[in-house]
């Protein structure tokens, strides 16, 4: 079986001024855990290296995210919370209301870091 064809995961990041945009697509299962961690590390490094007010995460085409990938978001949010207040940046998720797991999981993240996270549908 072709592993990638069955459970592909992809990401694309871009910067526009003080906004970082991260597009996540596909199936964030066990195969995607290391990559998810690496991507979020890179986003965080970029956000503290250059002036960044907002990181936009587009998950509208993310079919599923397992708990290990979800945990990478928790760790990332924890790192942002540990920054001095003036260095913290906001995080906005773009979600698809038809993907019900997104509403539940993103709500959990928003409750974990209410001062940082907003959700747009």
């Amino acid at each position, binding site marked *: 079986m072709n592993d990638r064809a*069955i459970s592909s995961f992809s990401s694309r990041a871009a910067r526009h001024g003080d906004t970082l945009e991260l597009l996540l697509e596909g199936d964030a*299962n066990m*195969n995607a855990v290391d990559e998810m961690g690496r991507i979020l590390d890179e986003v965080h490094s970029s956000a503290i290296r250059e002036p960044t007010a907002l990181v936009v995460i587009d998950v509208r085409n993310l079919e*599923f995210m397992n708990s290990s990938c979800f945990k990478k978001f*928790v760790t990332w949010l924890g790192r942002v919370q540990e920054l001095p207040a003036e260095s913290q940046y906001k995080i906005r998720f773009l979600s698809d209301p038809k993907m019900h797991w997104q509403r*539940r999981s993103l709500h*959990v993240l928003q409750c974990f870091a209410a001062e940082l996270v907003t959700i747009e549908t």
Partner: protein
Amino acid sequence: MTQATTPAKEPRVYFEIIFRPSVILTTVVRRFITDFYENVIDSEDSVSRLALATHELLENSVKYGMPDETTTLSVDLDQREGTVTIRTSNRSVSPHLEALQRRFAEMHAAPNAFRHYQQLLRETARETNVSGLGLARIRCEGEMEMDLKVEGDLVRISAVSRTGSEFAP
């Protein structure tokens, strides 16, 4: 894979899938099961919850099961009781068995699933190598009642959803 589904209007629908766990099959089985749920449950939100629970339970068996051993996944929809029960059974080894028992004991000691989940997020946020969130996620995001039975090295986990009147007509 064994046994087939029965028509949606049956008062009880039950099937089992026996497979050698792998990352690829976890996704394949989740998609298959999602198709099945969509045909028998008249709520997209419930289908999503059940698919999430199924995936997390299967990944659990991949991560913590014995290599080269099979996992049995069963799904039991009981329209009379208004429940969907997902069960996995697989063999595991001592450190994992104890970790599972500890996590279930913590869950059962915490009556509020959401608060327990948030507490777990805070406790594990700094740990980069371990997730440890899967079971609490099923309980909270999946809104399911969880149970664990360990007999020797055999692990049986069940997750029960009370879907009420959401079965497809």
